[in-house]
């Protein structure tokens, strides 16, 4: 059994990977993270085992690319005396430059989460990775990954009036 055309991988996973990237690096860098993820995936794709979990594989690459981008951004950034009031820089910007159907409120709430919670929510709730794999990516224990995700979701629920539904986990 051969491999599917890469175009089908894009069709199926493009939106999920972009959501995970936006959650982790914010709206400004998300498109760079997405592009680097899929370019890197395209390079490795012929060697991917036929029975691999493609979404998990992509989310893992997206994690590495996102971390690279955050590190590069931190190196570029000039030291400042204080953070903008009430949260992250990306959060403040996304509220202003939000494109058309952009759910400002919830994306904004995601941007305001601490890094570990953003990652845990992005990889587990958005990317569908089981907690064991989320823990491995983040270099923390499974319990810590689970706690970060549940704290993140609790905070989203508190901070976003557009989001009052339960978020069941896809896998535990």
């Amino acid at each position, binding site marked *: 059994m*051969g*491999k*599917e*055309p*890469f*175009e*089908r991988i*894009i069709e199926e996973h*493009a*939106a999920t990977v*972009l*959501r995970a990237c*936006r*959650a982790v690096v914010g709206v400004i860098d998300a*498109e760079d993270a*997405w*592009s680097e993820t*899929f*370019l890197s995936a*395209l*390079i490795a*794709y*012929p060697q991917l085992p036929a029975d691999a979990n493609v979404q998990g594989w992509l989310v893992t690459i997206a994690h590495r690319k996102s971390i690279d981008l955050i590190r590069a951004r931190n190196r570029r950034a000039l030291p400042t005396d204080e953070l903008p009031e009430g949260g992250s820089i990306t959060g403040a910007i996304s509220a202003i430059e939000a*494109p*058309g*159907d*952009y*759910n400002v409120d*919830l*994306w904004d709430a*995601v941007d305001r989460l601490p890094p570990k919670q953003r990652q845990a*929510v992005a990889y*587990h*709730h*958005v990317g*569908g990775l089981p907690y064991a794999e989320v823990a491995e990516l983040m270099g923390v224990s499974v319990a810590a990954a689970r706690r970060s995700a549940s704290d993140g979701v609790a905070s989203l629920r508190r901070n976003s009036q*557009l*989001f*009052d*539904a*339960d*978020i*069941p*986990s*896809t896998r535990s």
Partner: protein
Amino acid sequence: MTQNAEHLRGLSSEHLPIDAETLTRLHDRLRREAAAAGLLDLSYRTVESPVGTLLLARTSKGLVRVAFERENHDEVLDTLARKISPRILSSPRDFEDVTQQLDEYFHEKRTSFTVPLDLQLSRGFRLAVLNHLGAIGYGNTESYAEVAFAAGSPRAVRAVGTACATNPLPIVVPCHRVVRSDGSLGAYLGGAKAKQDLLTMEARHQK
């Protein structure tokens, strides 16, 4: 909120919407960067024609596949992924020369194709047959036996039939111009009606 739980797989589209425009822009960027990095082994598009929707695929060498709808385009792409490379992207812009020439052909303003071809999907005798087909001029036909003779194996009449039936580049490599000795049409990848339509169009133009 149990009624939501069913379709709500994590933080999905309802909660964190992504606009289609962004995804289109990202696809375009990926296509450009992949091509620049030499990673785009195959690009494809579909195009409407009088004989139905055609799938076009090309490598860096040239047009490698033209497929009729009845061949099942998804299956054709699966086969290309297996035989050539799974690094396949939709890339309509790579086909401007091909779509223009097809358009001219179907409007009876063109009698042969000059786009570069990649014949890597055909080998041996089948390749010899395809190479000969280009010599059958617009509006003309040859019998399977005549093609067998011209391709250097007069007795391989059935093999000529197979070569035509597996022609990876129908229309552009004109296997529709090969008919039975008794004048009846014979089989065609795009169906008997498509073959008849192409030959009728070419005959009309000849007058």
